[in-house]
């Protein structure tokens, strides 16, 4: 291996096989969880059980059950599905994608791209690092919640759903239940860290400041959180009474959105429109690549910015060679093409989602915000989905659209589309043979 940042997969399989395994694995987890919910007797309808499981494994905070009516063991299971979903997303992004075929496909991981700082050199070592970082972070969040005054059970479940950017809460009114400034500060900080890539977390622990400083994505992430918090604070200052409470609430809303977690402290639907739309934009942009969060990912957004800049410069200097740089390293043309394709797929998925939800009974704000939020695996939205609303505000068929969007969003769309395309091809071949 000439490139030390490349991690080799221990077995050689075709891309379609690997992707099929991933999609089938995710689907089977959902099936297992659905069986658990149905067997518990707490959820009677099949579609509700599927929705709840899907929201769990895709780390979306949309729910169709009243958590306060569930027994403790089921709440724990619910939180655990999100934690496993977050781990699965991380494993997919950091381990499977960069490794298969020894090639860097799908542009999920860029922390190692063109850089000397890498997580690990072997596949198993890499997996180990990711898992231990994730587990360590969860334990840390648990300790912080407990120290801030949460009960042991709540601290455990909330730490599971925070570290995974899941957003399931044990209470109908999410974080507002505790009515505690300390818990909200801890929650905001934990969500902010949950949206950071695992690689950056490892660098933080190791104190590799240089590596952190070089990451354009991390800097952008920090700036977005700061800038958005300032804006939201300014917009809601008079509505919420001003002072430290407003700042805390704004920061909480911003980190909950950008990390695509979806915890709530208040009914943000009472705000003026601007901060609500800002939060929706943050949800869409989402977290850093290589984190448990969802969304379009900041890394891709940076590459899109680079492409746009290059396009403008090339109009003035048609023969110029303008590289697109991410974190100081030149992004390959192949990765830019993938970002383009991903952007188109992303927009198409949202368009289909909006059409689906709108024609199945949601109004336009609900449809638009709901599709973006579900695809980004966040949860909160505008319209009917604002405030502490759960997914039951939508009719069952529209919830089906959300299920599909959450699944697509968690798996970065590509694998699902490829596997479906492969499946159609296989069926056609079968029919030909017959």
């Amino acid at each position, binding site marked *: 291996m000439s490139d030390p940042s490349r991690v080799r997969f221990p077995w050689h399989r075709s891309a379609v096989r690997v992707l099929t395994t991933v999609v089938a694995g995710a689907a089977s987890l959902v099936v297992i969880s659905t069986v658990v919910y149905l067997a518990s007797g707490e959820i009677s309808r099949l579609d509700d059980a599927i929705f709840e499981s899907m929201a769990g494994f895709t780390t979306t905070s949309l729910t169709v059950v009243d958590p306060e009516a569930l027994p403790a063991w089921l709440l724990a299971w619910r939180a655990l599905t999100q934690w496993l979903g977050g781990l699965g997303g991380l494993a997919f992004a950091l381990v499977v994608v960069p490794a298969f075929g020894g090639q860097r496909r799908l542009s999920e991981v860029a922390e190692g791209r063109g850089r000397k700082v890498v997580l690990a050199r072997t596949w198993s070592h890499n997996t180990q690092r990711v898992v231990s970082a994730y587990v360590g972070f969860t334990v840390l969040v648990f300790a912080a919640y407990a120290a801030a005054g949460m009960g042991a059970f709540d601290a455990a479940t909330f730490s599971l759903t925070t570290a995974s950017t899941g957003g399931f809460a044990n209470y109908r009114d999410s974080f507002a239940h505790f009515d505690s400034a300390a818990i909200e500060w801890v929650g905001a900080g934990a969500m902010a860290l949950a949206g950071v890539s695992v690689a950056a977390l490892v660098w933080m622990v190791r104190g590799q400041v240089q590596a952190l400083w070089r990451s354009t994505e991390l800097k952008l992430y920090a700036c977005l959180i700061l800038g958005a918090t300032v804006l939201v604070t300014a917009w809601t200052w008079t509505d919420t009474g001003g002072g430290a409470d407003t700042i805390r609430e704004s920061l909480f809303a911003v980190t909950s959105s950008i990390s695509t977690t979806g915890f709530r402290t208040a009914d943000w639907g009472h705000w003026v429109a601007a901060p609500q*739309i800002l939060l929706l934009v943050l949800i869409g942009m989402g977290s850093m690549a290589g984190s448990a969060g969802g969304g379009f990912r900041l890394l891709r957004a940076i590459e899109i910015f680079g492409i746009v800049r290059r396009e403008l410069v090339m109009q*003035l200097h048609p023969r110029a060679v303008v590289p697109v740089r991410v974190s100081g390293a030149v992004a390959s043309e192949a990765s830019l093409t993938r970002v383009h*394709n991903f952007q188109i797929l992303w927009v198409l998925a949202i368009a289909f989602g909006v*059409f689906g939800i709108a024609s199945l009974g*949601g109004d336009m704000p609900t*449809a638009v915000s709901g599709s973006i939020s579900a695809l980004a695996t966040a949860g909160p939205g505008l*319209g009917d989905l604002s405030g502490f609303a759960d997914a039951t505000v939508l009719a069952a068929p529209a919830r089906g659209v959300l299920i599909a969007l959450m699944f697509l969003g968690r798996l970065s769309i590509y694998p699902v589309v490829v596997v479906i395309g492969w499946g159609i091809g296989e069926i056609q071949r079968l029919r030909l043979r017959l």
Partner: protein
Amino acid sequence: MTMVLSTVRQVRAVAKGAVHQLLVDRPWNVTSRVGFVVGLGLLFLVPGMLLATLIEWGSSTSNSEVSLGLGALVTVAAGVLLVTFTRLDEDLPPASVFAAVAWTWISCSFFGALPLWFSGALSSFDNALFEAVSGMTATGSTVLSPIEGTGRGVLMWRQIMQWYGGMGMVVLAVTILPFLGVGGLSLITVEAPGPTSDRLAPRVSSTARRLWALYGGITVAIAAALMITGLSLYDAVAHAFTTAGTGGFSPYDHSIGHFDSTAVEAVMMAGMLIGGVSFTLHWRAASGNPRAYGRSSEFRTYLIAVGAAAVVMSLLNWADDLSDLPNSFRNGFFGAVTLSTSGGFANASDANPGGDFAAWTPGAQALLLPLMVMGGMTGSTAGGLKVLRAQVMAKYMRVGLLRVKHPQVVARVKLGQRAVSEPILQRVAGLVALYALSALVATFVLAALGEDLITSSSGAISALSNMGPALGDAGPTSNYLVFTRPARGVLMALMLIGRLEFFAIFLVVVSAYERTRRLHRVKLRR
């Protein structure tokens, strides 16, 4: 005899040289590529202004002919001054081309606002400017309220501006921009192979002339068809101007709903569709090759997309009991055509309330947004991303997915029989990214200025696509006064950005930045 002839020739040559030196070289003048083009553009507006003045003078309803004439006078003065005291350089670097185009549109909007402002139809200049930008970019968003009661000449000037704006775009897209190596033309070449197919004539100037002739012919035909359906000469001409240019202004408060006539709507739909089809195809059909339409995959995709969307929307509206089946189809098709061609007319009236697409069932509204984004064909008067780009992006995506599956596959994006080269793909992809980014930022800015999610997002898309009405509060029966003043300023910028296909306006900023940076560097070196 031969001696006389040769002497005459010599004299003619000398005279020609002198005239050339006087008019073209003009050594005493300032070299300003931008100023010269802007001056020409302004002079170009004058006949329209004079026509509007004449109509105002001839009508008995109001008497703003002096203000209209004054507007024309100021425009002539500015145009003549610019053309006389500046000269065009032989070589045109890309930066100054973009600057010239951008400033021409900005100044034409500025001077186009003068008649509206002078006549008092719009009392504040920023509103007059909004109306003029919306006119010159053939958008069709209006802040004039009520429209009826304003002088007929003033109203006609709004229509004429859209006619100019519609054609200006085609000339820019098919002649000026491609000539300077900007995306559009190379795409048309790929779409319809052939040595001279990219331009209608070997020379760009004659291409422009042919386009104008075609455009004029289409306008006359639409006007004639509208007169047959029973409209007065004034109404027919006024609507023909904005239909051919796919603008969307109407001298009536209820737009097309004023007539409440299926026949008028059918003619307008046909007119808008013609305006939304590539003028290259029209030219080829007009010069005896009507099969050119059928052979263009972009044309087929365009019709299929608009037709399919129209049928689905009609059925959804019908299922939601918005109106009976015939009216649902009437409104569905009118809406699909007017939104996809970026016309932006409204056929809603008291007798036909189902024409108000901002009140359609949400599912149908969700289909309107992609139609607005897609727009018409390349090289047409319609706005939006253009069908061809949508096609290219869809195929690009398919190839990308194929590469995930088979990493070593050799797959190319094909249009018709030809493969699209990698640089063109990147161009198209870059433009799509630029569009998405602009729409996102614009939505956020409009929201920050006080609009709700649907109004701001659809308003941004509508302005970028030069459509006109949007969804939410800014629907077809509404008025752009619902936006706050700063938001209207943002919308003006968006309309110009969208009309000039993004690059011109952005690059004026970028090149100014580059220039200052270069100056800065020189200073540092010293």
